[in-house]
């Protein structure tokens, strides 16, 4: 529900009181260095008064500027008081300089935008192939690394010889001799186990195996007889009669 007057003001689109002042100053149609600050101040104050009559909401900084300009106006009109610092003429000059500076930047911006701009007025090549940087590795290794690597591989592949130290066994020959000798001393059926020598568990297992083979061999030679009641039942031996 914008009122027509406000619409007009918005469309003018001033960006702050300095911008408004500059617009008013340029309306004087003279060099900014030759403007009448007093006339500018009066125009600004009139503008603010009109805005108030039209019940326009002016941002606070426009009002702050109006108050300061009213002060500047009176200081410029009244006889100069040497006690008052700063000098109102000096203040007016600074305001003028600010307006000049803003104006200069505004014009510089317009001149920049009007230049022959890349992509608008002048054009780069439409299908540049582009340049490429190829990164290449320069591989590095030391001779020691290679030799050590080979040592490592050889170590892991070296044939391994299994030497079993201090293993207690009874050979078949020993078992044959032992059982052959002991059979003569026994009169009746005797279990195979009773022929085994005392010793470690490991030795007894070896002795059991070789003694069993020895018993079979003796039976084959006709020197011993074997008897077993059932599978896994105790095996009995006696000398052949």
């Amino acid at each position: 529900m914008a009122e027509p007057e406000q619409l007009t003001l918005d469309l003018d689109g001033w960006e702050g009181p300095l911008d408004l002042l500059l617009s008013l100053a340029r309306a004087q149609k003279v060099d900014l260095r030759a403007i009448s600050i007093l006339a500018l101040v009066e125009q600004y104050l009139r503008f603010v008064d009109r805005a108030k009559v039209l019940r326009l909401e002016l941002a606070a900084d426009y009002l702050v500027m109006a108050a300061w300009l009213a002060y500047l106006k009176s200081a410029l009109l009244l006889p100069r008081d040497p006690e008052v610092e700063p000098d109102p003429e000096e203040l007016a000059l600074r305001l003028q300089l600010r307006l000049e500076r803003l104006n200069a930047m505004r014009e510089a911006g317009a001149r920049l935008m009007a230049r022959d701009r890349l992509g608008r007025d002048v054009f780069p090549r439409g299908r540049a192939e582009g340049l490429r940087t190829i990164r290449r590795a320069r591989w590095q290794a030391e001779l020691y690394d290679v030799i050590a690597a080979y040592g490592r591989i050889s170590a892991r592949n070296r044939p391994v010889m299994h030497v079993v130290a201090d293993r207690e066994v009874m050979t078949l020959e020993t078992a044959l001799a032992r059982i052959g000798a002991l059979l003569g001393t026994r009169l009746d059926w005797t279990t195979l186990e009773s022929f085994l020598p005392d010793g470690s568990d490991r030795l007894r297992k070896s002795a059991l195996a070789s003694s069993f083979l020895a018993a079979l061999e003796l039976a084959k030679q006709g020197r011993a007889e074997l008897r077993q009641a059932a599978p896994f039942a105790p095996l009995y031996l006696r000398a052949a009669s």
Partner: protein
Amino acid sequence: MTPPDDIVRAVEALLFASAEPLSVDSLRAYVGGGDVRAALERLEADYAGRGVALVRRGDRWHFQTAPDLAHLLRRDREEPRRLSRAGVETLAIIAYHEPVTRAEIEAIRGVQISKGTLDVLMEAGWVRPAGRREVPGRPLLYATTPAFLAHFGLASRRDLPGLDDLRAAGLLDPVDLMPEGAHVGAFAVEKDDDSD
């Protein structure tokens, strides 16, 4: 044209093929030594008056079409996005005063910079942060980029239009951040319009 020698041909081919303007150093890296500057001078002369020109932008060189042919080329091309009035003024202030703080830009314009204005300039690749000013608060400084020079066709910042006159008139002097009283220190926030 008279056939150019090897290094001239090489520099010509590189500038022609590159998607970016190239510095003398990077040209030298590609051609592997030789008088690159002399080659550039020769090319500049060879292309003078042609439909394509060799131009220097900052310390980089590139080929572009001759400005007077813009009317032929602009056809069915999209206009680059228009900068808002706030954007144009802010860009000009940065270019003519760089390096410059945000507070200094605001002091010159008499309004606060709305959030997007610097973003738009940085997104366009024309403005970059350029360190901090060593004063209390260490405010960020802004400056223009090589892409700014390339886009606006400036060989260097010294080619900014009217730079010398503005400097002579004292309009590029350091900005007084504590203006007379606080009167214009109460900044208005600029409108966020993108039109100008």
